[in-house]
C-alpha cells in the first residue's frame, strides 16, 4: 500500500502529472469572482467563505478523472487488482494520494486567497479548519465517481454530473462552517456534521468504490 501511495505521489509530482493545476485553477476562480460581482469589499467579505469553498470544490473536481483513468488505460489497474492487495485498500490509497496532491495544497493556499477576497481576520482559522476537514470527503466521494466512470471514454463531463449532487451535503456544511467562523457565530453544529460526513464516507465509501471498480474490471 505504501509503495502504491509513493508511486502515485511520484507520478503526480513529475512533469505532466497535473500537480499544481488544481491550485492554479483555484487561484483563477478567486481572481475572476471580483470581476464578475464587483470589487466592493463589503460584498466580497460576505461571499468570501462560499466562493473559497466553491473554488476548492471545483479545483478538486478537475483532477478527479486522473485518479484512475491513467492506470486503467495502461493496464496498471488490472495488475493492482490481481495483486494480493484488497481493492478497498487500493481505492483508499488512491483517494489519499488525490487528497495529498490536491486537497492539502488547497488548504494551504486558501488563507492567501482569503486575503484577496477580504476575508475577516477571525475567519481564517475556520476557513482552513473547514477545508482541512472537508477536502478528504471530496477526495473519497470523487474516487467513487472515478471508479464508476473509469470504463467510459471521455467520461469527464459525466463524472461531474454524477459527483456534483453527491457533493451537496459536504459543500453545505463546509461553507456554513467557514461562514459562521467568519461572522463569529457558534460553529459547533456544522463542525460536527462536516466531521460526521467526512469520517462516514472515509469508513464506508471505499467499499462501494471497490465494488464498482470490480464490476468495471470484469
Amino acid at each position: 500500500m505504501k509503495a502504491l501511495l509513493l508511486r502515485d505521489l511520484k507520478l503526480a509530482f513529475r512533469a505532466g502529472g497535473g500537480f499544481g493545476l488544481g491550485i492554479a485553477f483555484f487561484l483563477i476562480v478567486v481572481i475572476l469572482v471580483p470581476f464578475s460581482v464587483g470589487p466592493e469589499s463589503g460584498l466580497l467579505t460576505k461571499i468570501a467563505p462560499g466562493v473559497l469553498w466553491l473554488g476548492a470544490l471545483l479545483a478538486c473536481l478537475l483532477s478527479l478523472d486522473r485518479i484512475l483513468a491513467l492506470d486503467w488505460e495502461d493496464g496498471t489497474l488490472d495488475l493492482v487488482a490481481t495483486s494480493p492487495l484488497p481493492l478497498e485498500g487500493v481505492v483508499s490509497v488512491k483517494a489519499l494520494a488525490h487528497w495529498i496532491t490536491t486537497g492539502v495544497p488547497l488548504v494551504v493556499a486558501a488563507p492567501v486567497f482569503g486575503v484577496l477576497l477580504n476575508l475577516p481576520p477571525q475567519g481564517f482559522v475556520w476557513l482552513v479548519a473547514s477545508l482541512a476537514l472537508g477536502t478528504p470527503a471530496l477526495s473519497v466521494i470523487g474516487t467513487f465517481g472515478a471508479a464508476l466512470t473509469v470504463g467510459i471514454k471521455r467520461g469527464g463531463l459525466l463524472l461531474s454530473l454524477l459527483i456534483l449532487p453527491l457533493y451537496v451535503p459536504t459543500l453545505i456544511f463546509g461553507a456554513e462552517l467557514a461562514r459562521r467562523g467568519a461572522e463569529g457565530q457558534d460553529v459547533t453544529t456544522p463542525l460536527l456534521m462536516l466531521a460526521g460526513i467526512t469520517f462516514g464516507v472515509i469508513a464506508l465509501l471505499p467499499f462501494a468504490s471497490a465494488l464498482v471498480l470490480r464490476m468495471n474490471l470484469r
Partner: protein
Amino acid sequence: MGSIWEYANPVKFSQTVSRFLLPVATIAAIATVVGLIWGFFFTPDDYRQGATVKIIYLHVPAALMAINIWFMMLVTSLIWLVRRHHVSALAAKAAAPVGVVMTLIALWTGAVWGQPMWGTWWAWDPRLTSFLILFLFYLGYIALWEAIDNPDTAADLTAVLCIVGSVFAMLSRYAVNFWNQGLHQGASIMRAGAVTGGDTEEKVSNVFFYPLMMCIIGFVLFFVALVLLRTRTEIHKRRTRALLARERLA
C-alpha cells in the same frame, strides 16, 4: 399462485404485462380524468388562495410520485444486485425517465403556483431545493445508463449509484433543511383525521381531499402502466439485440 419471483422470467413477465396493461391503463386514465375534472370544476375555490389552489391536483401527485419512483428504483436495484433478475434492473431503467418528468411537473406546477402566491417563481426553500437535487440525481442515473455499452455492467453500476445516491439524497435533504428555513407548507394530507376521515383544521379539507386522492390513484396506476410497458419494451429490445448478434455469428 406462485411466488413473486416467477415474474423474474422475462417471458412470464411479458405475458402478465400483456394481460394487465390495458385494464391498468384504463383505470389510470379514468381516475386521472375524473379526478382532474372533479378537482378543477366541482370544488370550491379556497377562500384565500382562490382558484390557484387547484394546481394541487397535479402538483401533489407528481411530487409524491417523484420521490416514490426513486424509492422503487432503489428496491429494484437491490433486487438486481442480490438476485440478478434482469427484469428488475430493466424496471429500474424504465422508471427513471418517468421519475424525471414527475420531478419536472412538480417543480413546474410549484413555480406556476408560487408566482401569484409567494410572489416568486423560485425560492431557495428546502423542499424546492431538495427536488432540484433529486432532479440532478435522476439525470446522473439516466446518463450513466446511456454511457455504458455492456448492459450487465450498466445495470450493476447504475444500481450501486442508485443505492449510494439514495444515502446522499437523504443527507442532502437534512443538510438543506439545516441550511435554509422554509417557505413551503408542511405535508397536510396525512394529518390528524386522515385515517378516521374526519374533517379537521390541520388537514386538507375533505372537499379537496377526495378528488386529490382520485388524482393520486390515477398517477400511481399511470406510472405502473408506463413502467410495465417500458420494461416490456426493454426486454424486447434486448431480445432483438441478442437475435441480431446470433444472426451475425451464423
